[in-house]
């Protein structure tokens, strides 16, 4: 087991390294860059004494863009290993500081979504599986597939249209209300929570379907197995059969599924955050990427790659934790 974990960790590091290199190469070979935009801006300034080319050369030297892609990447890795990810060009503060400011919005929203999602999709998935091909099953399947089939932006816009504009229950944008600054700390928390309802509902509706169907498939598989037949033959009540014997065995794939959610939980949700103008990591990194902010984009993508690898390893470990059979091998 230990050998396996060590091997997985090494592989994860290897993949992170090369993944980051690919991303770095792509960003560096972009035909236009943040630096060019700044140089153009400064060169057109009437007080400027330098030409565009002079500015460009100087800025390239400052931002270490005058060296080749490979040395540049190794320079970046060298600093990154020491925890120095540089200063965000677009936001003007250290990347990690900006990241620290914004990540919590995303994390809170995603954790709430995660729990709501589990509380809805697991019981529904079980229900659909136990009543396979019934009307309930069809209804739940259609509902789940609807959730999967909805584009995020359309769902978010529809929700905004209905609940913010037509019914006027929520604000259209933002995370805080108008009188946020004059509120007591408790009211402030309530206000933020109130503004998070629509984003959470959006994310929940989109993700609930996948988990529900996954749970249904697993449950069906388990229900077809021999030990369930044995349990029924023993004369156990249906409730005990489903909740104790069947459901416990669906937890194994469920746990691994949840660890795959880790990257999406910490990676933020670009579209939802953009549409509701929540300054979470998804929105902030989108702004950074489209402006060619290399330090931030590199940090964010590397973070995502690393997170994916971690989630894969966690899934493997969780398998072992949940299922004794895996541990034996």
């Amino acid at each position, binding site marked *: 087991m230990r050998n396996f974990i060590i091997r997985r960790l090494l*592989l994860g590091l*290897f*993949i*992170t390294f*090369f*993944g980051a290199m*690919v*991303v770095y190469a*792509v*960003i560096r070979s*972009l*035909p*236009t860059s943040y630096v060019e935009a700044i140089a153009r801006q400064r060169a057109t300034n009437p007080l400027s004494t330098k030409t565009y080319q002079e500015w460009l050369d100087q800025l390239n030297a400052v931002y270490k863009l005058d060296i080749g892609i490979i040395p540049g990447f190794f320079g970046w890795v060298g600093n990154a290993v020491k925890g120095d990810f540089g200063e965000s060009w677009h936001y003007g503060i250290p990347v990690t500081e900006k990241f620290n400011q914004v990540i919590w919005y995303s994390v809170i929203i995603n954790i709430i979504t995660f729990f709501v999602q589990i509380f809805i999709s697991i019981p529904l998935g079980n229900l659909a599986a136990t009543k396979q*091909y019934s009307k309930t099953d*069809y209804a739940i*399947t*259609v509902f789940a*597939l*609807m959730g*999967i*089939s*909805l*584009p*995020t*932006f*359309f769902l978010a*816009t*529809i929700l*905004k*249209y209905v609940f913010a*504009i037509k019914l006027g229950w929520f604000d*259209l944008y933002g995370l805080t209300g108008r009188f946020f600054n004059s509120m007591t700390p408790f009211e402030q928390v309530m206000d933020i929570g109130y503004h998070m309802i629509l984003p959470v509902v959006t994310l929940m509706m989109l993700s609930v379907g996948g988990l529900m169907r996954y749970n249904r498939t697993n449950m069906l598989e388990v229900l*077809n197995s021999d030990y369930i037949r044995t349990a029924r033959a023993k004369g156990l009540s249906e409730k005990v059969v489903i909740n104790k014997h069947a459901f416990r065995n669906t937890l194994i794939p469920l746990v691994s599924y949840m660890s795959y959610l880790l990257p999406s939980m910490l*990676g933020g949700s*670009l*579209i939802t955050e953009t*549409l509701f103008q929540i300054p979470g990591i998804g929105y902030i*990194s*989108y702004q950074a*990427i*489209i402006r*060619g902010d290399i330090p931030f*984009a590199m940090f*964010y*993508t590397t973070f*995502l*790659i690393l997170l*994916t*690898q971690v989630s894969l390893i966690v899934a493997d470990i969780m398998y072992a934790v949940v299922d004794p059979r895996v541990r034996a091998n």
Partner: protein
Amino acid sequence: MPDKDINQNTTQEDIYKVDHAEEMHLDDARRVKVLSPGMLVFKRFIRNKLAVVGFVILLFMFTFSFLGPFFSPFGQTEVFKGVGTMSKDYAGATYNEELRYTIADGAEFGSSQRTQFLLALGENNETFTCDDQTYYYVNIDDNTYRIMQLEPVAEVILKGFNSLTDDVVPDELITAYKTAEEKGVNSFELDGIFYRITKKNKASIISIEIDVALATLDVYDAYNESDKLMVSSFDFRLASSLALAQNSETFTVGNQTYSIRNGEGQVTILDSAGNEYAEISAIIVNPLDQSVFLTVGYKSTIRQMIINRQSRFSYTHENGETIEYTIARVNKTYNIKKETPIEMIRLFENPSAEHPLGLDNNGMDVMTRLMHGGRVSLLVGFIVIFIEVFIGIIVGGVSGYFGGWVDTALMRFIDLFNSIPFIPMVLIFGSVMDTLEVKPMTRIFLLMMILGLLGWTSVGRVVRGQILSLREQDFMVATEATGIRTSRRIFKHLIPNVMPILIVQATAGLGGIIITEATLGFLGLGVKYPLASWGSIINVASDAFIMTSYWFMWIPAGMLILLTVLGFNFVGDGLRDAYDPKMKR
């Protein structure tokens, strides 16, 4: 192999059911008929209601997107223009504040006289002199002055008459003067000549009145062009002014008799035949464009509207055209605006019979754009899935078939590829295409390539897994024993067996690609104007104004995406169940 067995079992089961229903003999020839695997899948698929619903939805979407444009009378980028009205300044009206002079025949009343007259008017002097001439003016009514030149004939000092001309003062004049003085008037008539008495120091001067000019604030408009001369003549104006001042109903100029009809704020003069002859009013109406001629009737309508404080009226012109006008007051002037028809792009037009889903923010037919957008969205989906399957089969097939270090290397490559975050990469490529200003059509193809290249790994994995299990089966041993070429073994014997699961994978994947493409379109990185895709059509909803006011611009596109993806998912689900022998129904 177990798969095959179960397959056959179910086949026989099915046949048994059929037999039972039709009561066949054991040796009936039909008993031997075995359903082909394809037929079996088809039957299972048909039995799944959701899958059929999904199939119908997809059928509708394909007809809508691929055949729809042929039936749509409009083009994808056809901009609809309509005739709208726009208020344009047409004429101006104002109360006349400047005296207008009508000069009598043979008389002279130049600017120096006018200045002196205005000075006298200001100082309330009845007489004024200019160039050694003495003038006298009378207020006919509030805003009309009759200006006369005085020709002194006699001077009366202490009741003694001195002639100021060469002639002797006639007795008749003296008598007439005396009667006038007794009555207390300062003018009299004698032998058709008017005399005026003015006081100068202690002397009174008797002078002959000669009409010089008429100064008035009134504006005269002749109904007929030919009468203009007459209407602007001194005699006509004098006679009409006097008649107005005396409130008489008729007056005579030359041998013509005119009657007066008093309107509100303006006076109409009728000729002897009772036809409208001229208008008198205090309001000047002028066209803004000098080339336009305003008829008197039109002017008089405007005057009436101004006096009645109306802000809107319509007037039927001589050519029978009725046009709406609005009157806007700015300080002392009134601007008459004409509702001029101009060509306008019909933006945001609500749904109508002609355009079932209205017109969008560029004046294009939303319905037609949805059809063409559907074409792009569906085509992107199909081509991307084709690219994914193509690369996936090659990499997965090679990896699964050869195994060993090739497998390990390719799998690590897939891991690496998978680790690259999808959205940031697509964002970067999208902005690259933005800066390179790629043409909209090329952009669609590049987009397909990028999506395909970034998404093939899951297909590759599935193919590899499937081939790994198939490789060990008996029929593959048989191909090896018969010495068939490797490439033929992979592509002729292995891949067809992977096909079912690939079809399921691809169908479900199509929905995902359509969503991705729509999301990119929504972020403005996908298909660009003027070409449409469903995502780029919804893009307008990011403008809160359009989102709140024009539902027909974005909700239909969203519903189409939802339905299509739902259709693909239903069909994909149905296919998976149909191919999976374990899913007994």
